[in-house]
Each structure stands twice: as C-alpha cells, then as structure tokens.
C-alpha cells in the first residue's frame, strides 16, 4: 500500500535573534586612511579585522564626526558629516556577511550621522564580517582628506543566540 501521507514543504529553520531595540554593547570601529589620503575615486578602505563582531548581531550603527567628538586616539576623524572639504558625504559603506554575501551595499555614511538621523541610531540586524567590509571613497574631484584621519563608526551589537 502506498504511503499517501502529504508532506509539508520544507522551510528554512527560523533564527531567533534578541530584540534589536535594546542595545547590548557598543564599540567604536575605525576605517582608517592609514597615512594614504583617499584621492582616487572608488578606492575601498577596509576595516581592521576586528573579532569583536564574530558571533554577534549588529543592531545599530552611528557615524561620528568632529561635531560629536574630537580625538579618541592618535587618529583624527572626518570633520563633518555633510559636505565641506573633509566630510562624510564622500563615502559609502558596504557591509559583507560571513558567507561573502553583501548585506549593506553602498550606503551613504553621512546618513548614519546624528545630523541626519536626528539622534536616532539607524537600526540593523546583521551578522557582519568586518574584515571584508569597507568604506568607499566616491568623489572624483580630487578633494584631499587628511591622511591621518579616518571614519569612526559606533557599532552596537548583541550576542548571537546559539541554538
């Protein structure tokens, strides 16, 4: 006798993440120019490999500039979020996942600044491989940025729930 029991379609097992509304921890992460001022269009500036985001869920990202904070280390940060001669408006952010999949493609970094979010941190739910992620300089007009500067992001994250 044939087994005619109907089978339900297989669906991917859902992953349950913590509520991203609650910021667990945060960490300032840099994309540094490393003494080589970005002067050519489309030159990616990679993040330092930072294991702090391994097995973590990024829940929010902010951009800092000199309107918010001056100097944290021996590196400076871009002067303004918008425009100017050293602003964040020249850059986009691309975040890549652990399987090389692009999660965030060419997101203007200035849109993450407090000037554009009005103090509300942009919320995400991402598992980011930081060493494959980068900031892209998009300007063609030869604006010169200080080679000792960088871009400072504040990544909010929580631990990934292990199933």
């Amino acid at each position, binding site marked *: 006798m044939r087994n005619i029991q109907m089978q339900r379609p297989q*669906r991917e097992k859902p992953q349950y993440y913590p509520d991203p509304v609650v910021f667990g921890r945060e960490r300032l992460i840099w994309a540094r120019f490393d003494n080589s001022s970005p002067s050519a269009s489309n030159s990616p500036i990679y993040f330092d490999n930072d294991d702090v985001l391994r097995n973590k869920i990024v829940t929010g990202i902010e951009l800092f500039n000199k309107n918010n904070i001056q100097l944290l280390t021996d590196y400076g940060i871009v002067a303004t979020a*918008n425009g100017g001669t050293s602003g964040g408006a*020249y850059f986009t952010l691309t975040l890549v996942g652990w399987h090389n999949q692009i999660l965030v493609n*060419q997101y*203007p970094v200035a*849109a993450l600044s407090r000037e554009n979010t009005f103090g509300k941190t942009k919320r995400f*739910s*991402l598992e980011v491989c930081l060493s494959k992620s980068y900031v892209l300089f998009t300007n063609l007009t030869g604006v010169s940025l200080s080679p000792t500067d960088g871009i400072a992001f504040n990544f909010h994250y929580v631990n990934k729930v292990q199933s």
Partner: protein
Amino acid sequence: MIIKNTYGVELNLPTVTVGLRTNFQDIPQLRYNAVVITGIEAYTQSQLLSSPTGKTIVSSTGILGISITLVVMDTEEVYQLPYYSLVSGLNSGIVKEFANKRINIVKSYATILNTTGINAGESLFLSFMYVPSLKN
C-alpha cells in the same frame, strides 16, 4: 525600522526636461520575485556628493522637482511620491517604510516635475531596504 539588507541604487538623469520619466535600471538583487521591499531611503548632495559611478548627486533644491513612482506587477501602487519625502535627513531621520512590497524595479521611474536646480547628467541615489523572499 530594522534594516536587514540594503542596496544602493543610482538613477542617472541624462537630460532634464519637465515631464521626463526615467526608469530604474535592472538590479538583479532587487528583482521582484527575489525580494520584498521593506523601506526606501533617498539622498541629496548633503548626504552623498558623488555616486559610486562618479556622477554628481542632485542637490536639495533639485529634488523638490522630482517624484518617484513605484510599480508592483503592472500597477503604479505608489504614484508620484515626492522624492523629498524619502530623504530621511530632511524628515526627522525617519526612513519611509513599505508593507513588504514586491516592486517591479524596471517599471518604476522618477518624473521631473520642475527643472530648477537639476543639471543634466546628475543622478538620484536611493537605498532599497529588503528581505529575501521565503523559499518554498
């Protein structure tokens, strides 16, 4: 809104004429059977001066003359939405959310309603927030 994936989309305006419609290019990652759109954020020169292809982004004055129409299947479900309303930096930082729309991107378009502040060759730049469709 909580962003799970975003894709930056450039829409170049090679000529500037009142009433001109410019369709979005095909973006394989955003095809309507692959993803549902959960939100759209747009930008002016204040947030991004040049696009990744090196085109100047339309200024905050120029965007006042642009509207966006979004097509689902063959229906213009979002018709002539002012581009201004999609710029979160001009709207208290709020990203415009959509109720999981399957947008037919190549049939969606921008319309120039007023040419003031728009120069030929400039581009619009938007981020489409999306989630992949469930596999059956």
